[in-house]
């Protein structure tokens, strides 16, 4: 019991207050307030630091010093970017920890400002319980982090033993606070005043010298960083620190007057008052009262400076009130304590005696009014889920927006979309669409280059009057809408695709296929197959199935509503043994690109396969009976990254497997093979794996062709091009560009005998197959320019059609001339197309894995983590306070 008696009685009290702070902020953490653009920006910048080592997810333009999101990055490096369900939620957990630390520091500061224990309790309770404080201190704002550092600096400055080491620490903390949010510079008068009054004259000059220089050194690391990056002063082609400072100080939109009902500033103030009708207004009399109490005067000056900023004409940042909250609580509690002490004097003057009653009564009235004003807002802060619509929108996007599409989004969901597997260029923050030239360069055609726009309340409020974003929204239509009113989230689809008619398959192909399927299909289905109402993809899929593992075609049903619109039938039903249907289902799941299925499910009827509603011609819309004549010649060039070992299988449209070719090892492109003329479905497959349908091609008699395979944007996606090789006996040249490492290339030929270089291609990208240009035969020097470097190579043009194949060599692009003349085409390799059993296929492509791998977070580890953090902070404060109590007791 004696140990408990020796324990500082502040400890349990402080522990309860910190727990109160934490609990009030943890309840409904993700629900209210709704995720803001700013929060997403800070979290995205922290993500960029951890993922790519860059200071921001777009070009860092010195709008705020980066210390704030560097701390956020440290936190997410420990907890993971998905803690709490989304990136912003992970940041909010850090904010809760910081709020607990701020509350603890507020306690220490009020005790060091010679306030009694009860007054300190009131100060921390005000900070913990005010709905404005709850809501704003769990939002991911840099001000929250900065104010915690500022409080630490103030606590250190008020060191009771006037230690110099405390001055070092205070200057460093204040420097970090300024580097986290530059508006902390507004507190310089308050801090300087405190440093002056809280130091004794004997050591004051050293304290000031140390404080001033350490603070200057910490802040100058920011300037040093700008200098080292060469971005201190404005110059061509780079951002600058000076421009960032100029923007923040002078070029921000004027908020208007506070009395003007329609101004931005009034709107901001209304937002604050909606959350807490009492505290922002009471801050003014509290500041005035604080100026009258000598030991609270510096804090009141700081508060008054903030109030002056809010009231003055000019820009008002929304989170500015965060800096005012702890100070308001401190000054309110301190002033109240002083007033109460005066009123409860044992020997009052007659004036005071007369007014004692009314003053106490009015004080109690004010407090009860404040509490009653707070109570209704708790419902919104602690219970409403304002984030539901954004979460629903996110889920919809994950399921329905293809991975290669470009989206313009609100920054609040930027990180989550990137972590979902989208490319960095495909998810564009709305704010940057018109202001960042790098982003504009990614979309050279303006709004046409964007496919989707996600519009939320904050992005709707900040659309510029004209520009690409406005055009994109004007040309877009809602594809999905979630929520309503202030939390409405629209997902708009931009109409950038020309509406081309959806062409059904030509009956000629259907007839050929029906002939093969005659004895293993439902006659009705066969009839539909030969009509002009079947989607081309159905035909191609049936041809491949027929060649590998024939199943019974049960039906090709129409979907309600689409028959009348004339949409080709995109659904088919197959029956057969269960195992076979499982294999076919796996086969359909494996398809991608234009042949991707919307669903392939096993029902009572059999295997129902449904293709998505796509506007794509794959080459089966016009056709006739198989052409007669000499066989064509075909070779394949596999230009994909990562060269998987695969064979290219040809299946005639009537369902017969004709043969295979491969371009493996040194023979890339392969030699010409002789293929009978006709229409074929091309599928690639590796040994033992499911084949993937790539393309439908039509070969004319006696014509040479080259089939080139390029990698698409996503892993596993393939772009195939079948190019007819040039007219014979003519000296002509074309380019096949498969060099991706250096970006776009320029190819020029200089005749060896001298003369002007002929620029064959300027800015040729990966995947380009050009037409033929006539060139006289002879010796040339080929010059390939890419990425600022040049490679030269002597080439000889014979009088035959030649293709220049550009690939990635060890030292840059390598040029290889290919003869486009089929001298003696070999026979096709025998067909090796098989449908492996389900489960033998390679793992599902990467983009699906991202959707599956999202682990749902339960709140329990999160709460446990925060409690541990709060306990550690409390223990640290215990040690400090115990020392303080010991010294106090010793000096008594």
């Amino acid at each position, binding site marked *: 019991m004696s140990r408990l008696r020796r324990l500082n009685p502040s400890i349990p009290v402080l522990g309860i207050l910190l727990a109160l702070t934490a609990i009030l902020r943890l309840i409904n953490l993700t629900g209210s307030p709704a995720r803001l653009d700013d929060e997403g920006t800070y979290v995205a910048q922290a993500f960029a630091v951890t993922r*790519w*080592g860059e200071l921001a997810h777009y070009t860092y333009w010195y709008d705020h010093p980066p210390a704030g999101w560097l701390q956020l990055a440290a936190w997410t490096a420990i907890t993971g970017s998905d803690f709490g369900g989304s990136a912003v939620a992970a940041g909010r957990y850090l904010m809760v920890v910081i709020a607990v630390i701020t509350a603890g520091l507020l306690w220490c500061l009020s005790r060091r400002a010679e306030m009694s224990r009860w007054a300190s309790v009131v100060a921390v309770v005000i900070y913990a319980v005010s709905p404005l404080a709850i809501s704003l201190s769990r939002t991911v704002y840099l001000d929250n982090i900065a104010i915690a550092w500022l409080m630490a600096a103030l606590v250190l400055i008020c060191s009771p033993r006037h230690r110099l080491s405390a001055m070092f620490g205070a200057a460093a903390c204040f420097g970090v606070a300024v580097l986290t949010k530059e508006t902390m510079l507004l507190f310089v008068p308050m801090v300087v005043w405190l440093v002056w009054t809280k130091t004794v004259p004997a050591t004051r000059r050293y304290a000031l010298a140390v404080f001033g220089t350490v603070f*200057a050194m910490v802040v100058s690391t920011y300037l040093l960083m700008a*200098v080292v990056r060469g971005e201190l002063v404005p110059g061509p082609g780079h951002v600058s620190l000076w421009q960032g400072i100029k923007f923040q100080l002078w070029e921000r939109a*004027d908020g208007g007057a506070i009395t003007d009902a329609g101004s931005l500033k009034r709107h901001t103030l209304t937002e604050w008052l909606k959350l807490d009708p009492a505290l922002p207004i009471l801050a003014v009399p509290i500041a005035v009262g604080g100026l009258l109490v000598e030991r609270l005067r510096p804090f009141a000056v700081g508060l008054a400076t903030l109030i002056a900023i809010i009231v003055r004409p000019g820009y008002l940042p929304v989170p500015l009130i965060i800096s005012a909250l702890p100070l308001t609580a401190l000054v309110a509690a301190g002033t109240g304590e002083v007033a109460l002490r005066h009123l409860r004097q044992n020997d009052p003057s007659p004036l005071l005696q007369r007014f004692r009653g009314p003053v106490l009564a009015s004080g109690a009235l004010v407090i009860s009014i404040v509490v009653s004003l707070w109570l209704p807002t708790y419902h919104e802060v602690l219970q409403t889920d304002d984030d539901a619509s954004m979460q629903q929108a996110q889920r919809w996007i994950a399921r329905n927006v293809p991975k290669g599409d470009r989206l313009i989004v609100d920054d609040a969901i930027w990180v989550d979309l990137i972590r979902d597997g989208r490319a960095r260029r495909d998810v564009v923050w709305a704010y940057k669409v018109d202001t960042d030239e790098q982003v504009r360069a990614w979309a050279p055609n303006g709004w046409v280059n964007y496919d989707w726009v996600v519009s939320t309340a904050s992005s709707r409020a900040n659309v510029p009057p004209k520009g690409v974003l406005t055009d994109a929204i004007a040309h877009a239509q809602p594809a999905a809408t979630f929520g309503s009113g202030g939390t409405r989230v629209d997902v708009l689809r931009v109409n950038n695709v020309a509406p081309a008619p959806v062409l059904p398959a030509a009956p000629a192909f259907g007839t050929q296929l029906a002939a093969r399927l005659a004895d293993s299909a439902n006659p009705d289905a066969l009839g539909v197959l030969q009509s002009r109402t079947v989607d081309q993809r159905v035909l191609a899929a049936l041809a491949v199935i027929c060649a590998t593992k024939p199943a019974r075609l049960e039906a090709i049903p129409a979907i309600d509503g689409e028959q009348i619109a004339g949409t080709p039938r995109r659904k088919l039903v197959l029956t057969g043994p269960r195992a076979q249907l499982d294999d076919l289902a796996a086969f359909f799941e494996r398809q991608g690109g234009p042949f991707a299925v919307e669903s392939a499910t096993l029902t009572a009827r059999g295997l129902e396969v449904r293709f998505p509603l796509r506007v794509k011609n*794959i080459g089966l819309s016009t056709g006739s009976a198989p052409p007669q004549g000499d066989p064509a010649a075909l070779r394949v060039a596999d230009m994909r990254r990562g060269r998987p070992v695969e064979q290219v299988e040809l299946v005639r449209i009537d369902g017969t497997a004709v043969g295979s070719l491969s371009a493996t090892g040194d023979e890339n492109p392969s030699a010409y093979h002789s293929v009978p003329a006709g229409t074929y479905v091309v599928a690639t497959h590796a040994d033992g794996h499911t084949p993937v349908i790539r393309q439908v091609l039509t070969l004319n008699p006696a014509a040479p062709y080259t089939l080139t395979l390029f990698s698409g944007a996503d892993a596993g996606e393939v772009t195939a091009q079948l190019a007819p090789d040039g007219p014979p006996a003519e000296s002509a040249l074309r380019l096949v560009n498969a060099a991706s490492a250096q970006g776009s290339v320029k190819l020029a030929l200089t005749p060896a005998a001298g003369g002007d270089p002929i620029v064959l*291609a300027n800015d040729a990208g990966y995947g380009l197959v050009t037409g033929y240009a006539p060139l006289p035969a002879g010796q040339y020097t080929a010059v390939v320019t890419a990425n600022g470097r040049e490679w030269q190579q002597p080439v000889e043009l014979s009088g035959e059609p030649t293709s220049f194949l550009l690939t990635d060599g060890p030292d840059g692009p390598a040029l290889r001339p290919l003869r486009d003349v089929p001298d003696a085409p070999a026979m096709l390799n025998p067909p090796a197309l098989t449908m492996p059993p389900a489960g033998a296929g390679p793992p599902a492509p990467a983009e699906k894995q991202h959707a599956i791998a999202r682990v749902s977070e339960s709140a329990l580890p999160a709460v446990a983590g925060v409690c541990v953090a709060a306990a550690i902070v409390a223990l640290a404060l215990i040690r400090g306070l115990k020392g303080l109590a010991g010294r106090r007791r010793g000096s008594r």
Partner: protein
Amino acid sequence: MPRFNRTAVALCAVLAFVGLVIFSGRPFGNDVRAGAPPPVPASGADTQSAEQPPSPQFGAPPTDSQGGEQRSVGSSGGALPRADGVQAASGGTKPQAQPMPDPGARPVPLPQLILYYVLVIVSLGLFGVSATTLWWMLHAWHSPERLATTGFRRRHAGAHRFFSLVLPARHEQAVLGDTIHALARLDHPYYEVIVVIGHDDPETEHVARAAAARHPRIVRVVMDHNVPKNKPKALNTALPRCRGDIVGVFDAEDDVHPGLLRLVEARFEESGADVVQAGVQLMNVQTSWWSLRNCLEYYFWFRSRLHFHADQRFIPLGGNTVFTRTALLRRAGGWDPHCLAEDCEIGVRLSTGGARVAVAYDPRVVTREETPHSVKALVKQRTRWNQGFLQVFRKGEWRKLPSRRQRWLARYTLAMPFLQAATGALLPLAVASMFLLKVPVPITLATFLPLALMLVTMAVEAAALGEFGREFGIRIRMWDRVRLLLGTFPYQLILAFAALRSVWREIRGDGGWEKTSHANAHRAGTPAPRAAA
């Protein structure tokens, strides 16, 4: 400046700040489009996109006969035409080059990696040395209580002790007479002054005997017949002749305060120490830029750092105004006759033996001295001290200290002159590397740390200069402060040179005593009359 003016200036500054903040909304009434963020220019790698007109074109490019999308069959931009008759089926996406390269994917080549490590380690080392130097420099001002402990708290002792003041002098005929007269008139009833003169020094002997003749009861002259001569040998000659309980050592040019002995014996009594080191201060701040820094060095050393070492029970004593109990000195065997820094050596030996040392500094009773006359003399003095430190280190008495922490502190303290010199001399290299070398930003910030600490140290020195001026009644002008700051690096170079010279001499075994000469500059134009303490 009267306090009123200072307050008015502060008030104006605050009002200006508030005005700036309030009116920062519209400073010049310019026509900049408000609210628009500055356009962010594209950086480097992406500017090679083709020159496409930004006007949006509705609709897809024309499709070719076979129905393939022509987007995948692009134009070359050069002489090669668009391909004709291509059948292409992309997945709706264009064939794309590799995704944006991962910026962190390139491994750092080994020489560069070694450079980074070297930079970081050297910067951290410099930072550590600078940090400990700064921390020890500020030891006295750490808190008001500690500042109070650095002075003489008790003003009178209960009982008087008998002091023997030893005054070794060699070729000091210019200053010795005044010093002996001052010493003979101290405010204390029981003390004697023993002047030690070399047998080959007739001029000084003449002055000494003349002065001794005027104060026969207090001053005695003792002849030192050792060859070769140095200070510890002189002191050891005097030690057997001392009659007092406490032996005090003074230099021939010292300007001693009359009330010093009373305060010292009060300090002995209140602290129960075996050794009391009182303050020594160089006074001629305005003679030259390096004398200014030299004086400040002494100020920090006696005001602050010595107190730290006393607290740590390992103290390199000064050779001047230091008072030791005679019995302890005799038991320890006197001073080491072969050491160039005999004061440091005796301090180490006594500390290792467990003696308690008390340091006290009061600006009013500090012993006043002067700096060496020239840079050359300064270099010789520092060489001697540094070499002495090296000799103490090599002698190894400090190894007898009880705890490992004390032994490491001893090593660090004895190595400090060399480390400090190295730090000061390497600093421009750190500054240059910060701006010239292309290293990642975090490493640049690491190399900035020692420079930042150096700037903090300079600010503290400027503050101390002001305090020095106030305590000693010397007027410090802005020009003095500028000279102080500008002289930082050259002074470090001088010290570094002296350190190197001392190492060189020690390696060569050259242990000769290079004496500094004095010319009484600190007494000419003494600023304020010395009031009795």
